[in-house]
């Protein structure tokens, strides 16, 4: 009988060995796949056993994202709380029980959970894990100025639009407000997400979850004349004194392109003889139409690229929450830089198929302010460990030179003229020289306009660059509705 018994023993050993092989498969080979499964209830809990790092404003006091502790059984769980509710909600994002994350909560997750940290903190985390103490993530300190951010949000109110303010010298983003906004605390509430999706604001446009500051593509209209003027001056083809004759239209492809499409001109339809500076000051379309035709679409596109167009602007938020500015194919809605198919005259005054984000337009103003060098925008000032040690500090960088310093100086004078006696007088601040450019783009819907103001101040020593956009303004122009917002934001930023 022993032969049979030996064989049975072999069978039993084979069965048990199969179990070891299968365990190895699930724990070593397939572990990553299992972890990534959406319905993994364990991972849903595990992510909350880590005390996520806090997100602070530039003042180091205002907390955008905090934790609330909850004890369940053997675990202490940490859930996100957003004390400032809708303030910079689209930038901060959220981290929820259902595991979905957005904004900095998503892109900075590795730091916030302490899984991407320096050696000493990694060692502490290991000890904490072994000792079953709570793992603490790294804290973020943003460049956002909470008070001004709040002011910008209030100024936008229920209107759809965005405000972006940044330092032209460093690229630090002071304000990044998108309206309408939402309360990230609601995402995890029953029915909360559906409620958020229904927030529409006065424009009845895209959802509140959408970050208009970085994802919103708007026709830049006359604010794009900054780029056109930069190309005109920088190439040496024109000077601020170059003369033009404005008959009320410019002739392109044998057809008349009328100025009347531009409500910024404040009723004046025909300017007659004028130079580039006053054409810029009063935003005369025919002047820029002629410049565009002289320079060609290719040159305009090249200069736009120098300012950062056609690329996703760098920032610490998730890459899919930022969009590149540039000319978009109207059918496929894809970015295309094929200048051969463009209308240079209309492109020159920011119509045609040009679309830009508020962040990109802030970068344009900042570049002029920064003597022609594009500052690299950033929003995370500093990352600190749970013990307060600095893990990473952002040092200002640039995206290269867009225009010569002389061109920047000439453009500054022209932009100052817009505020002192042109279309942007509403942005005047006593004692502070403001340089700006208005923009009012047709939406194709009667008297509704996209109203822009793109500026920096003080013009003689630039500290802040601001871009304001308001969507679907009924008879509201860049100079009348957006410039006052920019003015208050500049005042608040320079006040401290």
């Amino acid at each position, binding site marked *: *009988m*022993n*032969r*049979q*018994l*030996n*064989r*049975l*023993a072999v*069978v*039993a*050993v084979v*069965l*048990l*060995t*199969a*179990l*070891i092989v*299968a*365990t*190895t*498969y*699930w*724990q*070593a080979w*397939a*572990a990553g*796949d*299992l*972890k990534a*499964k959406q*319905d*993994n*209830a*364990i*991972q*849903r*809990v*595990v992510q*909350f*056993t880590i005390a996520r790092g806090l997100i602070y404003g530039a003042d180091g006091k205002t907390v955008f994202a905090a934790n609330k502790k*909850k004890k*369940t*059984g*053997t*675990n202490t*769980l940490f*859930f996100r709380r957003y004390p400032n509710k809708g303030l910079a909600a689209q930038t901060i994002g959220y981290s929820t*029980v259902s595991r979905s994350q957005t904004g900095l909560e998503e892109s900075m997750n590795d730091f916030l959970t302490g899984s991407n940290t320096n050696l000493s903190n990694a060692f502490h985390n290991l000890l904490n*894990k*072994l000792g*079953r103490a709570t793992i603490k993530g790294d804290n973020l300190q943003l460049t956002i100025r909470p008070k001004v951010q709040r002011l910008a949000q209030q100024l936008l109110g229920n209107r759809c639009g965005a405000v972006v303010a940044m330092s032209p010298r460093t690229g630090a983003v002071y304000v990044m407000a998108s309206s309408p906004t939402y309360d990230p605390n609601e995402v995890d509430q029953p029915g909360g997400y559906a409620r958020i999706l229904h927030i529409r604001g006065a424009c009845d446009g895209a959802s509140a979850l959408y970050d208009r500051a970085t994802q919103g593509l708007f026709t830049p209209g006359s604010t794009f004349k900054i780029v056109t003027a930069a190309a005109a001056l920088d190439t040496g083809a024109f000077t601020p004194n170059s003369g033009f004759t404005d008959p009320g239209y410019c002739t392109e492809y044998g057809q008349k392109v009328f100025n009347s499409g531009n409500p910024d001109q404040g009723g004046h339809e025909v300017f007659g003889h004028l130079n580039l500076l006053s054409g810029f000051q009063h935003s005369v379309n025919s002047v820029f139409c002629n410049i565009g035709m002289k320079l060609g679409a290719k040159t305009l596109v090249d200069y736009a690229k120098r300012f950062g167009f056609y690329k996703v602007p760098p920032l610490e938020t998730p890459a899919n929450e930022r969009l590149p500015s540039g000319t978009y194919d109207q059918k496929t809605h894809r970015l295309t830089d094929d200048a051969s198919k463009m209308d240079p005259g209309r492109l020159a005054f920011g119509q045609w198929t040009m679309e830009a984000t508020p962040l990109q337009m802030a970068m344009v103003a900042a570049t002029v302010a920064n003597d022609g060098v594009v500052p690299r925008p950033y929003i995370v000032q500093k990352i600190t460990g749970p013990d307060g040690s600095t893990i990473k500090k952002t040092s200002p960088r640039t995206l290269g030179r867009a225009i010569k310093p002389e061109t920047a100086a000439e453009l500054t004078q022209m932009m100052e003229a817009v505020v002192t006696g042109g279309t942007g007088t509403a942005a005047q601040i006593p004692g502070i020289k403001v340089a700006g450019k208005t923009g009012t783009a047709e939406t194709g819907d009667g008297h509704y306009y996209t109203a822009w103001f793109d500026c920096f101040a003080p013009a003689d020593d630039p500290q802040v660059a601001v871009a304001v956009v308001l969507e679907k303004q009924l008879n509201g122009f860049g100079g009348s509705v957006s410039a006052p917002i920019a003015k208050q934001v500049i005042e608040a930023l320079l006040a401290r």
Partner: protein
Amino acid sequence: MVGILTGLGFASVYIADKSRISGGSLGYAVFFFALYIAAHLIARYAVPLADPYVLPIAALLTAIGLTEIYRLGPTDAFRQGTWVVIGVVVFALALFFLRRDYRTLENYKYLWGLGAIALLFMPLLPGLGETINGARLWVHVGGYQFQPGELGKIALIIFLAGYLREKREVLAAGRLKDWGPLLVIWGAAMLVLFATDDLGSALLYYGIFLAMLYAATARITFVAVGLGLFLAGAVAVYQGTPHVRERVANWLHPWTTTKVLCATNGQLTYRQECASYQEVQSLYSIGHGGFGGTGLGAGTFQNASGGQIIPALKTDFIYSALAQELGLIGAAGLLLVYMVFTLRGFRISLFAGDGFSKLLAAGLTFGFALQTFIIVGGILRVIPLTGITLPLVSYGGSSIISNFLLLAGLMLVSNRANAELQGGLR
């Protein structure tokens, strides 16, 4: 060896204690150690020549189980501890009464056969039986639930050992008449098991039956025919029982990308969120353990609102809990302990002097290994999942008692075999 293994068990209990600051927890370790010493002394007295490895290995497995159950719920650990005490008492009684000659059991083989069937039938009796998790295999007496099938397994093995020892030659010759009692008892057992929807046990009993039949007759054709019959039966059951169809679907496709009908709430959901939820979450638990595990007491078994993620975690799914906390190293180690126990069991069977002893030891050992394979293999998606306990580790009184009886059986057989070898008997 004994000391190291017990020390390991003790240490594992102690480590778990530290995760939860509680004065009483250390008491468990001391108590368990004392209990082990007691069992050891009883064994030394009653069966001095028995295999020295099986008791410490069983103690280690029991300690691992008790530790994990304590970690999952301290009140359950107290009940389990009580069952272990009862198990040790039953173990001691079995050794005492049968230490002279357990082979007298063989004389009552038909009684064991009938006893096995009676035990298997018990849950079907109205008023006494209870259906839990879709299988009717529980008996409710007073405040206690009991799974008589666990003891039925031991009784069936004793019957088969006795009957097959007596009839092995004639069975091998293939005379139909001699198959009668065997087929009747086996058929009844299968019938009862399918009536109770307890597929895991059906598979286990059938596997033990085929293994012992093969050991006794050396006829591989019997095994082939038996397996063929089983497959035919399985297909029939698959066609006829929605419960079984669901299990197979969960096994083959636990994750669906389209929504399917969920039987429990009648709505369309993904299968992983309905029928295969338990299996899938159990795999997540194992996967979360990774190579080194989360550490005892540091695993995650509750969702954010404090509810238990995996149902039946401390009974059928205790392997998923252990694999998460101990990791691949610990889980593979645990399986190796089962393997060592199995190999010792077969060694005992090989050295046994008579056919009844050989068949008894082999049946008990193969049953032990097969039961481990059925539940752990089910959890790991090697085979379809059927609910059954992990021997000595899972929470459950009936399982503990039956496995201590199994241990007693192996020790009695090895004691006799070694005595015969030393005394020059035969």
